[in-house]
Each structure stands twice: as structure tokens, then as C-alpha cells.
């Protein structure tokens, strides 16, 4: 029953026809096309849909539009009138408070309501006001800076918060971060310019996949298996088909036998389950209908009869003889076994001064980007598949779609709208992309599918839970003699990225410390749970946590300071590791020194009262994987013969085209590097500007469309800054070279003498103001037509050793970092407050220090959160017990620690302008540092993640935590609320 209703939105009366059960959020987004309010969870947990109701912040997903006539509704679109940003919005832009931007509209509105009521709000008030707005990117640090800046800004530019020393007004500025000085002579690179997409994101103008609506578009929903393991006996979709508005239902019977996945040797995912389901949430059917509500209802009407089979849910059980097999092809459910052995580990242990063995257990950590995955597919008349997707690896999606549909890659166009965070969960091709394309082809209409927050947990592809047995040998001076590890990685029901995960879990350990003898046995085990995949730090955070804990334990055993023991083992520049990885630039020691100094380590370690603790750990990561995920060239899989592995890149991993507009006043940078919130569009435009010698504000990014932007492998393995950066720098240099003769003619000098900067061309001894860059560009165009420069990047040839799996962990460059963490533990309840982090990183020479700090702050909060809070829990039927953001808790602004992020001076010759990665490396020190700080505060080591209050208390009481017990399958609802 449709009813007419008039809502007052942004001071305008908006008559709209609605259903009585429509939420305000759906009406704003679907009827009024105001998509600034985002759907992040739809049940009031995340705050992405925050709007103001009579000036107060509310969750639009919890309000029924039919009850709101006469109320005043303000959305993000109503904040910046006439296109002028408010002071608060400007502060968000300038302070780097925006990354993926998905939480931004809600965050800004919550802050705006607070400042309207309390113009000089205190830090506690800010935190309290924003605790209902989850952010997964920024670590809240820059958000707090932005809101506090507004809360304290006076019209005269001074700060309302008076100087603690003399009570006098102080200039309004935020506390400094630890930047190394920018290299002299660089105009764009090395400067903290605001993100190029910030203004769109802070006004709600940035469009994400689920915000898009194509003409004639229909909506679909995937039907998921409710059981962990079973044979499909029968599917009856007649009731679903009979529902008015349903357009199509597809099942395993309607799809090809083609399988897909990530690792070419293990494409083990079916398009839809054909005979068997292997985890709760396995896709069995898809339904298309005229709207999302109908698709959702029809999905519930698809009747599937299963023959339930015994399921194996635990990795250590799954490898036992006789355990049910998840896939027949993986014997004992082991789908990857790594056996690495370098040096003589046993002899080295025998000769060691001290040897300690410990068992550590990881957790199932879910990436939880604020934007759920979404896809819209349609097929052009010429048979081209056009796929909009919230993906972080558009090229791999293109490659996989070509494989699934047996069409050339040239017939697959992938468009990546704004993406609300990924962290690895959007790196693989997913069932939404496949099902949207399948249904779109059958219907001849665009099809949109969006995951619900619960669907996301059932799809998972989060961290593997790793069971780790680690053994470390040290000599008398604390130098590492040998290290051996055995890891069982719980991989869930499909391979996904798991082969690489299993290798990474071992390969990265020797990059940080010099380990002369090293053994790693890794088993990636299949279980009847949602598949695990690649998450920020890919495979490494849990082993790094375990290693850092073990090193700290042994430092205490030997009476050596934990920072000192790291110094004695620290990696040095230009070193080949025991597993044949080539370390180039390395300022690891500098990070140790800086953290020791700035955290007041010597005054605090071992000197804090009981209940307070400080801990330290280190970590680092690759700056891009040395090899592509698939072998051979860019071509349909079924056209390729067996590919012999060659120790080089077959094709460039990153490619850029720059076209200068005909008047020379703007430049369009085309590159497929996926901006997913990490800031690649911004730093790539800075690099291009620097290479061309023009202000970065003249750059416009075209990175969203594979028809426009040349191939880039995507945003994974922390590869974009180095690889895409190099491609862009080369393209920029190519443009500069083309106009150099014209500038030289204008300056009356030889072309090699011309220097470009700030949009001018100079020659030594020439006019100090130089000549206009754009004039040189125009003259080039007058003679040659389009001014275009191209560039590409291939990783160096010959990376890695010659043993099996030697490619994983290879990279042109490695990052290093150290973090000290301070905690307070309530010894009566076990509750941990992560209070402070002091972090220093060697990320090479930063392209944009503000963006680097944003990555570090985000990584620290995400990783601290996974250390103490996060774990996807399953019942004994393999059902997820907490598939939502009130059962699966991630840190809020009130939980986030205070963070000091510093960058040590470093230069990586293989990186663009000396840069290397930061996004993933910054996660790696965090888990170990938190665990160490908790051990330091309490006297007990918890070796089982997450380190919950319950585990701490049990350890303090000297009893093991309560034995495995029945966990109630019901999740309590959000609240305690009315």
C-alpha cells in the first residue's frame, strides 16, 4: 500500500510516495536520490546513515519515514549550501579526516550537531558524540583533530583552549606529527596536500556502487546455504517465481561447470553450488526482481532441500585421517603445504644458549570495510560486459569475468566507482559480480546486487585463523641462531588467496631480523566455514604477533631489553635474507631508536605500576608483490597453454597515460590503480605533477574505468605507491620530454637545460620567472596534436630464489616499523584500555606525509582492535554467531588510543621519488606491541587472540579460561534501547 507523504528535507518540502514500512534511509536514497546517507549495516550499529532530525543526529535506517511528517530532516547534501564547505567540512578535508569517505557524511553530521549544541566541546564530548559512527580507515585520529580544531577555533585564528603554561590564547593548530623534512626542490611530492576526492566525499557527492542507478535497472539477491555441508537434493523456485515483481531465478542448474577463484591452480569456487554446499553462506541461487525488497522476499521463498553431511569446522580436526573432506581433491583437507628449510636448524638449536617453544593461536578477523560489496552488471549490444563493482582489484575481476564467461578481456569493462574501504575483502572476484553478470545477460537489463552486512560475514574472505607452534633459539648475546615454525591455517571452504597466505605466513618472518637458520612448515587446511582470504598484512600479522611475543619473552628470559634485542638482530640495508629475499633500503634501526626515545621507553619499561604496561614490537611488509597472481600474458585463460614459470614479469604491472588538455592547463592521468580510500588518486596525481613540473591541482584522475585507464593490477600487497607511482612518474617525464624542445626554444637554450616546476619552465641564468609550461604544451599540440605521455612499471627481473614458493614475499622494496604501546588493564575485570601508541616507520620518502600518518593511524586502531576485540565466532553447526556490528565489535572513537606517528628519513632507489609502502606494514608491529603491553601490565602472557578480558582474568586467577562451552546461538540485539 503506497501512501503519500511530505517530508521536509534540507528545508524543502519533498512530497514522496512511500510504503508505510519504508525507512527514512531507503526513502532518502531510493526515492529522493539523496545518497549521501550510506547504508553500512541497516540496523543502527555503524552510523553511516546518520542524518539530523530537528537538529539531532539519528540513524535513518531505524526511522520509518511515514512517522516523520512535520519533522526537519537534514542530510549531508543540505550542509554545504551553494557549494561552499562549512568550516567543519573544511577541517575534515584539510586535516586528512577522510579516507574511503563512507563514514564521512554521518561523521560530519554527528559532529555538526555536537558543535551546534556545544561550540567549544571538550575532547570527551567529541568522542561521546562520535562513538556511534564507525570508521575503519582513519583510526579516528584525524577526525578528532578536525572536530577539535573547529571546537577550539576562534574567529581571530587563535585557539579557545588556552596554553597550559600561561593561560594565554595560542595559535589554533593541531599537535604535530613526526615528519621527516620534505626533500628540497620538490613542489608536490613530500607535501601534505589534501586528498583530491575529499571535497566530494565530505559533501556526499562521491558516488559508491550502491549509490548508482542505471536506467531500467533491476535488483538481485543471492540465496545462501543455511547448512555447513550437504548435498543439494532439490531446489524449488516456483514460489519465488510466483511472487509478483520477480523476474528471474537462477540455480546451479543454470550455470556452467566453470569454476573460478584466485590462484589459477585452485579455481575451486562454483558460480552457484551445483551439487554440494560447503559452508553456511555458500551461494545456491540468485533472484532478480523489480526492487530490492521483492528480491529479498523472493530469495526467502526459494526452497532448497539438502541432505546434510558431516561437517568439519576445526583446522586441527580436519587434517586427521577420516575427517570429512571439503573438496575431494585436497587430501586430508590440506590444500597447500609449504615445507621450507634453510640452513641447519636442528644443529643451530642444539648449539643455542637458549631455546623456547610456544604455541600461539590467531583469530578470525573480518576486514569490515564500512561499504558493503556491491555490483551492477549489464551487457552492451556488442556483447561487452560492463561491470560496476566495489572492488580493489578491477583487473583481476576483469580477468576472472573473461574466464567465467569465455569472452576476451577486451569485452569486459570494469568500472570502479568510489570504494568504501577494502583491506583485502574486495580483492577477489565475488558472487555478486558473477551473479549480477549472469542475471543481466539473461534479462538484458542492468542488475544490481548489494551485500547486506550479514551477507558480508557469510562471504567472509577475512583473516585465516592460524595455529602456530614457534621455536626460537638465541645465543648468549640474544642473537637469533635458528627459528622454526609450524602453522596450520584454517582456510574455510575455498582456496581464495589461501595459497599465497600460507606462503606469506612463513616467508616474511626473515625480512625483519637476521635469521641464519630457518624452517617453516605450513598447512593451509580446508574446513566447512566461509573461505578465508587476504586481509591487510596478508598472512603475516598473526605469525608476526607470535614471533614478536616469543622474542619479547626470551628477551626477558635473558635479561636483555626488548628494544636492544631487536637492535642486535635488526635487518640492515642491502641484505639477502636466508630465504633469498633482497632487502634494499632499510632504516629499521632508526625506527627502534626513535620509538625508544619518543615513547620514554627507558623510563617506563618495567617501571610502571601494576595494571599499567608498555610493550614493543616491530614489523614490515613488501612494497608490492614481485609477481602477478596469474602466469603468462593478459589473455583469456582458456586460450593459454600450460604456462612455464619465468622469473620475470611478462607484462608491466602498472601502466599510466597522461593526456594534457589542448590549452596546456590541465592534465588527465589515466591509470587503473584502484582508489579504495587509501589515497592512491591523490599521491599519484602528486607524482605526475612533480614529474611534469606543474601544480598537482592541474591533474584530474581517471582511474575508475578500464575502458579509459590502462591496466594496473590493483590495490593489494601494498603495491600502488611504488609500482603505479613509478609508471606515473615515467608518464609524467615523457610529457615533460615532449614539450622540452618548445620550452627550450622559448627560453633560448638547449633542451636538456630546461627545468620544469610550478607550471613554469626555467633555465639557469634565464629569466627568473621562466616561461609558461602551458605555452610550451600548446606549441607541442599545434604541431603534433595530442600531448600524451605514457609510462609503465615492471618489477625487477630475477626476484627470489629457485625453491618452490620462492616468489611469495619477493618485492622491489620492503618497509620497516616499530611501535610501542601503552595500556591500562583493570585487574578485577581484565578489561584493557589501549592508551597510547608511539610508532615510527620507514616507508621510504613519503609522497604525502599526511596520507602516511592516516595509514599508520588507521592500521594501529584496526590492528589494536583485532588484538583485543575481534573474532568471528561459529557455533557447532558452522553458523556465524556474530554476523553484524553489534556482535562483532570494532573499535569506536572512544576505544582508539592516542597515536604519535613518525616517519624516519629513508630513500628507496627503486621507489618513485624514494617512496615505498605504508598501508600494510603499519599493521604488523601492532598486535605484538599490544600483547606485550598487556603482559607487562598484568604479568601474564595471553597467546591466544583476541586477548579478551575473560582470558586475562582467567590467567590472572591462574585457571585456564572456561573449557569449550556451548555458546548461545542467539545474538542479543543491538540494545538496551527502546
Amino acid at each position: 500500500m503506497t501512501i503519500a507523504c511530505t517530508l521536509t528535507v534540507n528545508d524543502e518540502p519533498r512530497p514522496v510516495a512511500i510504503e508505510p514500512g519504508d525507512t527514512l534511509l531507503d526513502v532518502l536514497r531510493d526515492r529522493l536520490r539523496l545518497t549521501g546517507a550510506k547504508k553500512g549495516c541497516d540496523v543502527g550499529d555503524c552510523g553511516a546513515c546518520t542524518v539530523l532530525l530537528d537538529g539531532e543526529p539519528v540513524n535513518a535506517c531505524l526511522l520509518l519515514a511515514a512517522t516523520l511528517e512535520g519533522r526537519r530532516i537534514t542530510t549531508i547534501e543540505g550542509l554545504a549550501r551553494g557549494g561552499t564547505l562549512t568550516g567543519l567540512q573544511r577541517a575534515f578535508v584539510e586535516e586528512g579526516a577522510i579516507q574511503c569517505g563512507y563514514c564521512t557524511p554521518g561523521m560530519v553530521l554527528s559532529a555538526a550537531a555536537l558543535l551546534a549544541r556545544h561550540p567549544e566541546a571538550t575532547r570527551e564530548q567529541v568522542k561521546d558524540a562520535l562513538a556511534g559512527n564507525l570508521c575503519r580507515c582513519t583510526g579516528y585520529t584525524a577526525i578528532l583533530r578536525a572536530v577539535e580544531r573547529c571546537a577550539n577555533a576562534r574567529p581571530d585564528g587563535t585557539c579557545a583552549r588556552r596554553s597550559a603554561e600561561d593561560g594565554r590564547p595560542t595559535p589554533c593548530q593541531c599537535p604535530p606529527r613526526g615528519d621527516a623534512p620534505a626533500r628540497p626542490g620538490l613542489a608536490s611530492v613530500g607535501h601534505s596536500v589534501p586528498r583530491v576526492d575529499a571535497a566530494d566525499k565530505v559533501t556526499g557527492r562521491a558516488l559508491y556502487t550502491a549509490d548508482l542507478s542505471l536506467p531500467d535497472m533491476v535488483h538481485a539477491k543471492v540465496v545462501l546455504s543455511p547448512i555447513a555441508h550437504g548435498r543439494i537434493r532439490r531446489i524449488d523456485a516456483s514460489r519465488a517465481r510466483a511472487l509478483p515483481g520477480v523476474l528471474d531465478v537462477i540455480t546451479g542448474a543454470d550455470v556452467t561447470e566453470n569454476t573460478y577463484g584466485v590462484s589459477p591452480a585452485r579455481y575451486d569456487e562454483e558460480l552457484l553450488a551445483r551439487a554440494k554446499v560447503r559452508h553456511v553462506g555458500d551461494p545456491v541461487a540468485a533472484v532478480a526482481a523489480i526492487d530490492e525488497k521483492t528480491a529479498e522476499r523472493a530469495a526467502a521463498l526459494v526452497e532448497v532441500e539438502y541432505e546434510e553431511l558431516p561437517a568439519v569446522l576445526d583446522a586441527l580436526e580436519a587434517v586427521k585421517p577420516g575427517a570429512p573432506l571439503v573438496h575431494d581433491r585436497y587430501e586430508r583437507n590440506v590444500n597447500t603445504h609449504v615445507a621450507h628449510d634453510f640452513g641447519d636448524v636442528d644443529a643451530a638449536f642444539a648449539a643455542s644458549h637458549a631455546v623456547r617453544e610456544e604455541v600461539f593461536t590467531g583469530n578470525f578477523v573480518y576486514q569490515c570495510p564500512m561499504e558493503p560489496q556491491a555490483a551492477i552488471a549489464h551487457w552492451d549490444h556488442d556483447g561487452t560486459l560492463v561491470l560496476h563493482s566495489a572492488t580493489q582489484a578491477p583487473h583481476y575481476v576483469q580477468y576472472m569475468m573473461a574466464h567465467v564467461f569465455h569472452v576476451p578481456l577486451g569485452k569486459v569493462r570494469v568500472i570502479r566507482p568510489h570504494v568504501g574501504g577494502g583491506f583485502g575483502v574486495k580483492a577477489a572476484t565475488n558472487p555478486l559480480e558473477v551473479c549480477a553478470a549472469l542475471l543481466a545477460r539473461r534479462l538484458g537489463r542492468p542488475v544490481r546486487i548489494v551485500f547486506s552486512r550479514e551477507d558480508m560475514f557469510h562471504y567472509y574472505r577475512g583473516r585465516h585463523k592460524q595455529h602456530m607452534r614457534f621455536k626460537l633459539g638465541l645465543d648468549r648475546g640474544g642473537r637469533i641462531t635458528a627459528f622454526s615454525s609450524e602453522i596450520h591455517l584454517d582456510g574455510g571452504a575455498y582456496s581464495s588467496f589461501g595459497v599465497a597466505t600460507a606462503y606469506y605466513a612463513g616467508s616474511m618472518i626473515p625480512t625483519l631480523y637476521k635469521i641464519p637458520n630457518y624452517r617453516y612448515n605450513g598447512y593451509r587446511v580446508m574446513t566447512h566455514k566461509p573461505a578465508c582470504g587476504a586481509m591487510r598484512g596478508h598472512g603475516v600479522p598473526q605469525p608476526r604477533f607470535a614471533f614478536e611475543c616469543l622474542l619479547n619473552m626470551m628477551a626477558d628470559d635473558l635479561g636483555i631489553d626488548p628494544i636492544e634485542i631487536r637492535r642486535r638482530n635488526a635487518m640492515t640495508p642491502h641484505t639477502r635474507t636466508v630465504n633469498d629475499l633482497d632487502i634494499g633500503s632499510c632504516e629499521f634501526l632508526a625506527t627502534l631508536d626513535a620509538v625508544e626515545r619518543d615513547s620514554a621507553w627507558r623510563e617506563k619499561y618495567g617501571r610502571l605500576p601494576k595494571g599499567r604496561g608498555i610493550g614493543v614490537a616491530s614489523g614490515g611488509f613488501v612494497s608490492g608483490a614481485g609477481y602477478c597472481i596469474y602466469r603468462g600474458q593478459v589473455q583469456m585463460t582458456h586460450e593459454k597453454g600450460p604456462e612455464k614459470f619465468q622469473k620475470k614479469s611478462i607484462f608491466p604491472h602498472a601502466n599510466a597515460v597522461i593526456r594534457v588538455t589542448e590549452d596546456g592547463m590541465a592534465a588527465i592521468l589515466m591509470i587503473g590503480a584502484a582508489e579504495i580510500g587509501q589515497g592512491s588518486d591523490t599521491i599519484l596525481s602528486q607524482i605526475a605533477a612533480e614529474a611534469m613540473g606543474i601544480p598537482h591541482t592541474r591533474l584530474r584522475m581517471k582511474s575508475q574505468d578500464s575502458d579509459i585507464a590502462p591496466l594496473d593490477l590493483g590495490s593489494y600487497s601494498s603495491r600502488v605507491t611504488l609500482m603505479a607511482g613509478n609508471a606515473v612518474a615515467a608518464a609524467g617525464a615523457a610529457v615533460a620530454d615532449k614539450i622540452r624542445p618548445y620550452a627550450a626554444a622559448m627560453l633560448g637554450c638547449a633542451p636538456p637545460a630546461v627545468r620544469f616546476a610550478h607550471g613554469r619552465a626555467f633555465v639557469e641564468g634565464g629569466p627568473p620567472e621562466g616561461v609558461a609550461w602551458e605555452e610550451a604544451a600548446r606549441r607541442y599540440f599545434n604541431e603534433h596534436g595530442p600531448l600524451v605521455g605514457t609510462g609503465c612499471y615492471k618489477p625487477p627481473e630475477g626476484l627470489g630464489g629457485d625453491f618452490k614458493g620462492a616468489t611469495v614475499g619477493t618485492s622491489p622494496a620492503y618497509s620497516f616499523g616499530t611501535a610501542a604501546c601503552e595500556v591500562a588493564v583493570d585487574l578485577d575485570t581484565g578489561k584493557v584500555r589501549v592508551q597510547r601508541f608511539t610508532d615510527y616507520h620507514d616507508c621510504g620518502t613519503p609522497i604525502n606525509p599526511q596520507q602516511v600518518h592516516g595509514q599508520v593511524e588507521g592500521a594501529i586502531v584496526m590492528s589494536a582492535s583485532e588484538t583485543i576485540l575481534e573474532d568471528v565466532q561459529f557455533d557447532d553447526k558452522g553458523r556465524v554467531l556474530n554476523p553484524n556490528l553489534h556482535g562483532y565489535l570494532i573499535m569506536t572513537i572512544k576505544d582508539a588510543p592516542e597515536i604519535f606517528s613518525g616517519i624516519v628519513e629513508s630513500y628507496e632507489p627503486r621507489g618513485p621519488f624514494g617512496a615505498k609502502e605504508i598501508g600494510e606494514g603499519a599493521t604488523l608491529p601492532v598486535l605484538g606491541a599490544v600483547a606485550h603491553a598487556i603482559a607487562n601490565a598484568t604479568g601474564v602472557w595471553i597467546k591466544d587472540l583476541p586477548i579478551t578480558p575473560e582470558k586475562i582474568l582467567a590467567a590472572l586467577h591462574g585457571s585456564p579460561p572456561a573449557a569449550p562451552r556451548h555458546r548461545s546461538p542467539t545474538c542479543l540485539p543491538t540494545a538496551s534501547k527502546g
Partner: protein
Amino acid sequence: MHLPDVTIHHPASLAEASATLRRLGPRARALAGGTDLVVDLKTRRVDADHLVSLARVPHLRGVERAPLGAPANGDLAGALRIGALTTIAQLDRSPELRGSLSALREATRDMAATQVRHTATVGGNIAGAVPCADLPPVLLVLGAWVEIASDSGTRTLPLVSFFTGPRQTLLAPGELLTAILVPPPPTRTGAAYARFSLREGNAIAVASVAAAVTVDDAGRIARASLALGAVAPVPRLVELPPGPERSDDDAIADAARRAVAASDPINDIRGSAEYRRELVRVLAGRAMRSALERAREARP
């Protein structure tokens, strides 16, 4: 996620709301803030065809001191009347929450998040009868009553008798919770609320304990009670019997023991029953100590 097809009714009076609910029977639900109900409808925990919005029913909002006149129930002379549709944020900001009643602010402050506090209602937090709700424990130790009305009249009864099970109350078909009545606390009374959640912001209580303590002229405990949240099917009130003269520490330890004995927690994703009992012990001690301190500081 979407709601099932529903019809929304907008009664303009209490009598009309009550009659509508009674007429429609179990397929109808009263809609106040909706922060629980809308989620329950989307996730199909609750199924309903009709929602009866209370938004236009008058006299259900606000926090005010009842006239001291001669109410039917002598216990409630001068009581604070909290209208059921008062939002959590409105209650939090009410200047009436002072003295021992300010313990209510310890419940409103940490409840959910700002957005929910601006939507969720006091009545919903109580009539929802979710075991981990934050207001009931504090209201129980403050001796609160509930006012229940329907088209056939109004009754008041002690809050302690209102809850009958998880998400179940004494409300009969057609009845609505219209207000909470908090009688003026005895002089020299202090109250406190201690809650434990896994996260600092926007997380439900894993266990919570409220305490109210009244002291005599000499500062000795004259009367004390505790109430437990999230650790039993219903919020549980524990009246502490007047004990022999003893130290504060002994009295607090005794209270904590009684609280643990009165708890009946479950295992769930947030913690084991065992851990919850330990939390009850700790929180009871903390709530009791701070209530006692406040009682002694309270001016007669």
C-alpha cells in the same frame, strides 16, 4: 533489509491507541522510538502487520516532578514522572536528575550511541524487557513504579513486578506503559550504576549492577539494595537485609556475594556464565562502594 508490509496507525489519544492495539491483537505492535522494533522487523525476529505509532499520543513525553498533592498511591507522593516517550537523550539532559537520581545518568550516558539515544525511548527500554537494558537496574534500586494505561483505565505497580521473562512483561493486550514514577529517595541516599561492556562506545552491557544505599545520621548503612542487569532472564532486585554492625569492606563483600548468588547468567558470545558471575561480584562491589560514598556525602 526491509520491513514486512505493514500498516501504520497514528492514534491521537491514548484511548484510541489502546483500542487499536486491542482490536488488532498480536499482529500489531506499539511503535515508540523503534530502535529495537524496526531492527526486529527487518531481521524477522518479530513479525507484525500493524504498527501503532505513539508519536501523536499526548502527555507521554517529559520529565517532571508530580504535584505533592494526594496521589492515590502514597508511596508516589512527589515522585518524578518520566513519560514513556521521553527519549534517552531527553532524560539524560533533564535537570531533574540530581541527587541520588543522577545515577540514572550513569545508565543513559553509556547506553548505545548518540543517534540511538536521540530516538530510543525510556518506555521502550523498559517495556522491551531485554535482559541487558540499562535503565531497569537503576530504576529498580530507586524503587520505581510503572504507570500502565489502557482505554479502560490506569494502574500503577512496582517496576520489580513488571518483568516476567526475557522480552516479556505484565502488559496485557491493549495496555501501554505510559510513565515511570520514581518516588523521592529517602534523605542520605546514594545510588550508582556500574556496567561492563566489551567496548568503550556503543556496546551493550555484559553485566551491570545498580546500587542504592541509605545511611543513618551516623553514616551507617540503614538500607541498601542492588539490581542486576544482563545476568538473569529479567533485571533482578536484591534487597540487602540490615546486617550487624561491620566494616564497609565486609558489608560490600557481603553485598557482592549476595549479588552473585542472585545472578543466573547465560553463556553467549560476549562471555561465559562464569565470567559474568565474576563481573557481578566486581561491579556489585564498585556500585555499592560508590553509592555508599554518595550517601554519606548527600546533604540531608
